[in-house]
């Protein structure tokens, strides 16, 4: 990978590791509206799927700030990997389609 990709990835990991533990604990805009208007509890059921790292706290770590930082690190690296993989698949689709066009031309001429 090129140097600037590594630098940007390090910046992203640094934000997750060192800034996310100090995020504001206040509810966000939607949570605040839901609480004010009396429908917050409608969204508080158990999850439909089992989330391995619920609420950005890595399970099994007692210190809240460390649990958030580790969740942030894992999430950032995971997001990088998944997005990279999807981008590769999209690119491959492009190549295959180009190949398919070439093949169909060949077949048409043959």
């Amino acid at each position, binding site marked *: 990978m*090129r140097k600037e990709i590594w630098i940007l990835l390090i910046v*992203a990991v640094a934000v997750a590791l060192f800034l996310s533990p100090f995020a504001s604990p206040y509810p*966000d*805009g*939607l949570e605040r509206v*839901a609480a004010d208007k009396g429908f917050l509890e409608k969204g508080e*059921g158990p999850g439909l799927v089992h989330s391995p790292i*619920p609420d950005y706290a890595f399970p099994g770590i007692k210190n809240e700030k460390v649990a958030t930082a580790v969740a942030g690190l894992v999430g*950032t690296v995971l997001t990088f*990997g998944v997005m990279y993989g999807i981008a590769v698949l999209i690119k491959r689709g492009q190549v295959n389609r180009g190949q398919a066009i070439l093949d169909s031309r060949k077949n048409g001429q043959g």
Partner: protein
Amino acid sequence: MHIPDGFLDPKTFSTAWVLGGTAVGFAVAKTKKHLGERQIPFMGVMAAFIFAAQMVNFPIAGGTSGHLIGAVLAAVMLGPWTASIIMATILVLQAFIFFDGGITALGANILNMAVIAPFAGYWAYQVLQRLLPGRAGTLVGAFAGSWISVVLAALACAVELAFSGMAPWRVVLPAMLSWHVLIGIGEGVITTAIVSYVTQVRPDLVYETAKA
């Protein structure tokens, strides 16, 4: 602004799934046409950075916080179609791995933050670039575009909540807008600072329309 399960009724979340899913499908088809080899790792780091930045809630006022959405940041850097894919990918991971945003509500969250936010915001960014020449257009456009992306995503969220009968229209629309008008300023400041920096140091990394 991640809607959890339970806030939206089936007619609303299924409609949102169809709209959001179709739009992201188009985005994949569009990106497939022009995705360059060197953009692949850049898509990865952009997604990673936006994921990390979304974790950092900043206090705004009255015991409420907001966090970056990042849709316009991604759109200015990589174009709106690619931004849509990046945002949708982040939202899927947040819903399944981090219990942030519901599974039934994922279509609505994708519609609001991966479709409406990048496209409406990028459109505003482009309009301002036409009105103001050079770097000023890029920076003012980035600020206004990211502000409007948050406000319109919040408006869409409020419409979905009202359709679902969570609260009356006249209650939920002004409530959502009043907070997100402020949160949008935070979005604008962060987006503009990053766009300003990257267009200065590495203008070659930025999507064709940005001016150094």
